[in-house]
Structures are given as C-alpha cells and as structure tokens.
C-alpha cells in the first residue's frame, strides 16, 4: 500500500570534523534505510527517544533536507526530481505544526498576518480575508483575535493558531511534530481532539510525532518506532504497546508512568 507522502529506503548521514586529505572522514549515521508512509484519511504516529532521528526524518519528509539515499515521494513523485511547479503544489498540499507555539509565530507580526503568509507566499488565488476567517473559526477561535500579537495569547490558543496556519492552503497532508507536549494537561486534550476532528472532517493524512505513547495511542491508528535511525517496529498502537517486540519499544513502554500503577504502589517500577 502506498501513501500520499512516503519515504522509501531513506538514509541520512552527517559528516563530522574538518575536511582534510590526510584524515578519513567520519560520518554520523542519522537514518538508515527508513520506509515510512502517511496515508489519506489516516493518522500515523512516530515515536522514539530523543536522538533517535525523529527531527531529521520530519525535515526530510517536509523537503527541508535532502536524504543521502532513498526517495521522498509525494503522490508518487520524488520531491527532488520535481520542477518548480510541482514543488509549489507540494508545498501547498503540506501543512506543518511544530512543538513550541511561542516559537512558531513571528512575535513582531499580528496573528492575522502570520495566517495570511502561506496564501501570499504560495500564490493562492482566493479571497484571502474570507479564507482566514473561515479557518480561524474551524480551529475554534474568533476573528477578533486576528489583530493581536502572539504574546497576548496562551500556549493552547497559539497552538490553535499554528494549526490554522497549517490549514490555510487546504493541505492534504498535515505533519504535527510534538503538537501538545508544550501545553498544559487540560489543553492537550482540547488540541488533540481538534486534530482528530480535522482528520475526519477534512480527510487529511496526519503524521503525529510524539514522545507520549498514550497520546499516540489515542490519536493514531498506526505507529512506527524509530530507534537509532531505524524503524524497528510498526503496528497498531495498542497492540504494539501491550506486546512490544523490539527492545526500543519495550524501553519506551517501560518508561510510561500510569495513574493506575501509581495508585497501586508500583508507579516507579
């Protein structure tokens, strides 16, 4: 089964140290032979310890970095073989939400301008103002917020605005990199619910990167585990987490603190 956005056999390495004819170059292998697919109407999760390569993988999926080997396919076409027009189409169809809402919006621009940016930059031909109002409502906020600046909002509100910006160009793929980990517990639920609703209402392909396994279990129907640059396991979240096969997954599951374990006195085991 193929996905709308895919990695096939992707490897990435960074060169360490200085270039010298006398010193053999050493490389840091960040990703090795990764296969990964994001499918329409589905939410897929990516989990792993920090340092496993999740950030690099996300950068490659979004076209910000070119892999050493392998293909990055959008709707069947390799990103790095696209012409300018196809590249533009790709960018229009991709929305990205990042972890830290305070960092993902320019503090010097009113929120409404930040929302208009994707429309302007990618040359979308439509009534910009109407579109902005439409999307800000979709994420549950009022259009009165558009003239205000990022520092006037709470983390949860900013993340909604960031989601709105990601949706401006009517993308078919949404990549959310740790979208709720910087938020308060009760707000996490609100934002997660919003993301899940958007997937069903807009038939999006969602990729959710998270370190919290229960978040992934709730919001996705398939999850891949990344460890030391390799995908070690993929499967249905609840099954994977209750019967982990690889050591990496087992470690991740063992690190989870649950309420019931805590109340039973086994919280730290």
């Amino acid at each position: 089964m193929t996905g709308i956005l895919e990695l096939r056999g992707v490897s990435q390495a960074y060169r360490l140290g200085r270039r010298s004819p006398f010193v053999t170059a050493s490389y840091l292998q960040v990703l090795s032979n990764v296969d990964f697919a994001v499918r329409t109407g589905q939410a897929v999760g990516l989990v792993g310890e920090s340092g496993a390569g999740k950030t690099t993988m996300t950068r490659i999926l979004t076209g910000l970095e070119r892999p050493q080997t392998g293909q990055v396919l959008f709707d069947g076409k390799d990103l790095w073989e696209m012409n300018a027009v196809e590249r533009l189409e790709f960018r229009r169809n991709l929305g990205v939400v990042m972890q830290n809402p305070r960092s993902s919006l320019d503090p010097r621009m009113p929120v409404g301008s930040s929302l208009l940016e994707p429309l302007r930059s990618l040359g979308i031909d439509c009534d910009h103002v109407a579109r902005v109002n439409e999307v800000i409502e979709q994420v549950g906020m009022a259009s009165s917020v558009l003239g205000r600046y990022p520092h006037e909002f709470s983390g949860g509100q900013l993340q909604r605005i960031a989601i709105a910006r990601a949706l401006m160009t009517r993308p078919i793929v949404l990549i959310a990199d740790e979208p709720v980990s910087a938020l308060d517990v009760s707000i996490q639920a609100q934002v997660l619910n919003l993301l899940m609703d958007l997937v069903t209402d807009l038939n999006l392909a969602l990729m959710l990167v998270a370190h919290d396994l229960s978040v992934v279990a709730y919001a996705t129907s398939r999850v891949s585990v990344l460890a030391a640059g390799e995908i070690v396991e993929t499967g249905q979240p609840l099954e994977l987490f209750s019967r982990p096969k690889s050591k990496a997954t087992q470690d991740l599951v063992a690190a989870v603190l649950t309420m019931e374990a805590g109340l039973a006195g086994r919280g730290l085991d």
Partner: protein
Amino acid sequence: MRLNVSLIIGAILTFCAISIAVVSTFWLPYNPNLPNIPNRLLAAGSAEHWLGTDVLGRDIISQLMVGARTSIVVGAGGATISLVLGAIMGLIAAASGKIVDETISRVADIMLSIPGMVTALVLAATLGSGALTTIFALTAFFTPSFTRVARSAALSVLQEDFITAAQLYGRGRIFILARHVFPNIAGVLIVQFTLYFAAGILTEAGLSYLGVGVTRPGISWGLMLSEAQNQVGVSSPLAMWPGLSIVIVVLGLNLMGDGLRDVLDPKLSKSIL
C-alpha cells in the same frame, strides 16, 4: 506601560540637541565666524550675547549651535552608515555557510582590534581633516561592532520555529532575512545605534580638539574647547560651554539607549507564572 524615566529624559535631551542643530541651518543670532574685536571676551549674561563672546569676539551661542549641527551630523552619519553596513554583513554572516561566516567574523575581529582613535588619526593624516574624514573613520570603527551584534542576534532568531515555518511555505532566504529576522533584531540594533551615536559625538569632539577633525570655518565643540584652552586663566567659562554641551548630549543619548533597552526587552519576555 510603566513610564521609563531614562528614556523620557534621554529623549528630551536628544530632541533638544537635534532641534538646535536643525534651527542652526537657517537661523543664527550672529555670524559665528565673524570677529568682533571690540566685544571680545564678554562675560556671560550680557544683553546681546547671553553666553558671552570668545577671544575674537564671536558669539558663543551661535558657535554652540553650529557645533551642535556638526556633532549631530557626524555622530548620526557615522552611526547610521555603520548600522546599515553592519546589519547587512551580520545578517549575511548569520545566514551563510561556515566559510562566509568565518571570513566576515574574522575581518570584523581584526578591524575591532585596531583602536578607533588610531584609525581616525591615520585617516586624517592621509585624507585630510574634516567632517567627512571623521565620518569615514567612525564608520570603519563601528561597522564591525554592528556586524557582531547583528550576527549574534540574527543567529538566535534563526533558531526559532517561525523561520522554519516560513521556509515550509516557500519563502526564500532573502525574504526571511528582511521580513522575519531583521524586524526581530531591530530593537538590539536601535539601542546600539544610540550608544554609538553618542560615541561618535565624543570621538568627533576629541579629533577636532586635536586639530584633525573639523577646522574653521567649520565649528565643532571640540574645536571650541581647544581654542578656549588658551583662555583658561583669563576667561574660564569659555571652556565650560562646549564641554557642558558635549556632556548633556552624550548623557541624553546614553540615557535614551538604556531606556530603550529596558522598554524593548519585556515585550519579548515570558511571564513568570
């Protein structure tokens, strides 16, 4: 927003200095260069010359006014050109690869290691003295500083996620630098500008005092100080007026710079709750 005292006082003093400089372009009480020997060395407080006259009978107030113009033009000129050049170099250094960054940074470091006064003296000796040479010298000295300030501020802005977001919806490097990075480092640059404006005024006064800055018929506070030096035993206040002017304007600019720094900072800081 709580009123910042430094900023207000500094702004008032600076504004006064600039206003006087502007007025001097179209009106002066007397011709500041016309000798008037019969009225020489008048003390302050006389009806026609409120601050008195100098050794050649020239009105002090008129001279101070033209001196203000010199200080403002040279100080602002040097600081502005340095700001523009330094900001551009700093942004380029921050946004480029290692080689370009290292080159720009090392050149800036080398330029910074040469004392400003020495640069100014050498330039004056080779290009001749005058306001333009002074501005040139100031630029040579201040640009590397602005470059470093702009570079480090830009580097930290470039780490932010909204830069990545802009790349993701297709903005190019130049657009990002101009529309996302620059507005976010502008605050730091403005503060630096006011401080270097003040430093420029001081440097110009020093050079003119030494005789390698502005010379007659141009007038500078430093030049007035140098001329007044000979009269210290006879009419001490002569040195006081240009000296006080320098102190007031430099103080005003420094206060404004401090105040601006405080005012611009909290807007970006997070709450403690």
